[in-house]
């Protein structure tokens, strides 16, 4: 490699790193509490739900239709929007709203939320809990909630919604460029050094450089994977949008102009779950939304199913069941880009291998913070050298007591 090419790589590394460093520092730091959010919530806020009734093992679940009827009886005149069995508790969550139109209008007012939910015991069909009514005084904010909320939003979109998410995605892309160019430079810098050497008997700049190289190369692959999957995650809204305007629109075309039927005359919800389970064989059904939901069909139950094996559990397949007749319309596997997105999520979150994996994620994250900080120190030091040289050229005598970085640097490399 000629010095010229190398210099180009250096420029690429410097600028790509400068562009993304601040944002990477933000995501690295805010990512740490997010890794342990479950534990943090449990420790500081806790769970005040009453324990589940102890029933003999093998007690069958109540029919979902019973829950639907109960919910309707509790809120006559309202609509049910979603039925979601919880996967880690024997409970079913039913979401309701005054009407689809009310939900649509909510979007115009950020502080309005007309939807609410009821949590049922899946086995006894007893009401366990209800969301706070809209006119109740807001729940007191906890420090935990405030801190976790701030971290999550900073991490995902810097409080700036979709533009923020796309911006952070772009920063993820720049980070990948910086990692690749950094790797090229590593190969050159380390030609005369054994792996992992950190020279401490020379200029401090060389110590920082060696540190940057060591920390960077040790976490290189992890950072590439987490950085790239982070970028993919930031694209989820555009990718889902793309799917909606292409495949989904095509599938729903024959039904698009039909009126939404009244919820009093719909086919059985329980039967729709069974139908979906059969249509996507080997999958479990994770939820159902009622006809009329935005992005859904006016006449279909949309059921979300997912695979049962560990990897396939991340791949969702929607199933459409005609809510007027209960007949299956079809199961629609997602396009490749959404499958890719879904498989890439765990690789970003580190939530798929128990607590030890989360701890490793946190440790590697801290090492990456070390790479960022040492990179900034190197860049700032370099600027100081350039400034000193210019000042000297202009005739300013610099303090001789201080080791001149220029000579130290020259000594270090010769």
């Amino acid at each position, binding site marked *: 490699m000629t010095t010229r090419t190398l210099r180009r790589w250096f420029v690429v590394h410097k600028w790509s790193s400068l562009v993304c460093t601040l944002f990477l520092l933000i995501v690295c730091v805010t990512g740490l509490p997010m890794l342990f959010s479950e534990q943090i919530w449990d420790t500081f806020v806790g769970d005040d739900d009453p324990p589940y009734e102890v029933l003999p093992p093998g007690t069958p679940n109540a029919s979902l239709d019973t829950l639907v009827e109960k919910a309707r009886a509790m809120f006559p005149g309202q609509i049910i929007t979603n039925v979601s069995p919880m996967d880690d508790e024997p409970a079913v969550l039913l979401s309701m709203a005054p009407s689809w139109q009310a939900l649509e209008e909510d979007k115009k007012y950020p502080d309005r939320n007309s939807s609410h939910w009821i949590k049922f015991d899946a086995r006894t069909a007893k009401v366990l809990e209800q969301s706070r009514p809209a006119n109740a005084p807001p729940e007191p904010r906890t420090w935990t909630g405030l801190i976790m909320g701030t971290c999550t939003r900073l991490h995902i979109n810097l409080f700036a919604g979709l533009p923020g998410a796309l911006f952070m995605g772009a920063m993820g892309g720049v980070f990948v460029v910086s990692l690749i160019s950094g*790797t090229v430079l590593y190969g050159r810098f380390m030609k005369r050094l054994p792996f992992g*050497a950190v020279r401490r008997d020379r200029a401090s700049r060389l110590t920082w450089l060696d540190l940057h190289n060591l920390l960077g190369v040790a976490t290189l692959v992890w950072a590439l994977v987490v950085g790239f999957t982070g970028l993919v995650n930031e694209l989820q809204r555009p990718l889902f949008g793309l799917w909606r305007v292409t495949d989904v629109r095509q599938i729903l075309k024959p039904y698009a102009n039909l009126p939404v039927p009244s919820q009093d005359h719909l086919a059985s919800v329980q039967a729709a779950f069974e139908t979906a389970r059969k249509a996507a064989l080997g999958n479990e059904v994770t939820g159902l939304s009622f006809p009329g939901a935005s992005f859904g069909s006016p006449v279909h139950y949309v059921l979300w199913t997912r695979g049962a094996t560990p990897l396939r559990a991340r791949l969702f397949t929607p199933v459409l069941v005609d809510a007027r007749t209960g007949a299956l319309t079809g199961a629609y596997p997602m396009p490749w880009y959404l499958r890719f997105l879904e498989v890439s999520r765990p690789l970003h979150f580190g939530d798929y291998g128990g607590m030890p994996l989360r701890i*490793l994620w946190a440790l590697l994250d801290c090492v990456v913070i070390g790479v960022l900080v040492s990179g900034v120190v190197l860049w700032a030091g370099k600027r100081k050298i350039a400034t000193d040289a210019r000042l000297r050229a202009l005739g300013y005598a610099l303090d001789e007591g201080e080791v001149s970085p220029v000579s130290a640097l020259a000594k270090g490399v010769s």
Partner: protein
Amino acid sequence: MKITPPPEGAFSVVSEARGRPQIAVWRWPIALGALTVFGLFSALLGQKGLWLVLSWISLSIPFIVTVVCLLQAWCVPSVKGGRS
């Protein structure tokens, strides 16, 4: 008045011929990278028992290697000071 150009980057002075063969530079990075990839995917694809343990072990090796190198640099009196 003459303004001297800023000093060259550290790399520009080193001559290509004097370095180690490229493969020696990459031996450790490739090994650590391979361990990372194995660790990431053994937990993702296996997700149970032994695969999880293998994942924890292989992902912790890059971290442990880093810590060992740092300890060597800061605790062992400088014998590993490079070869120039």
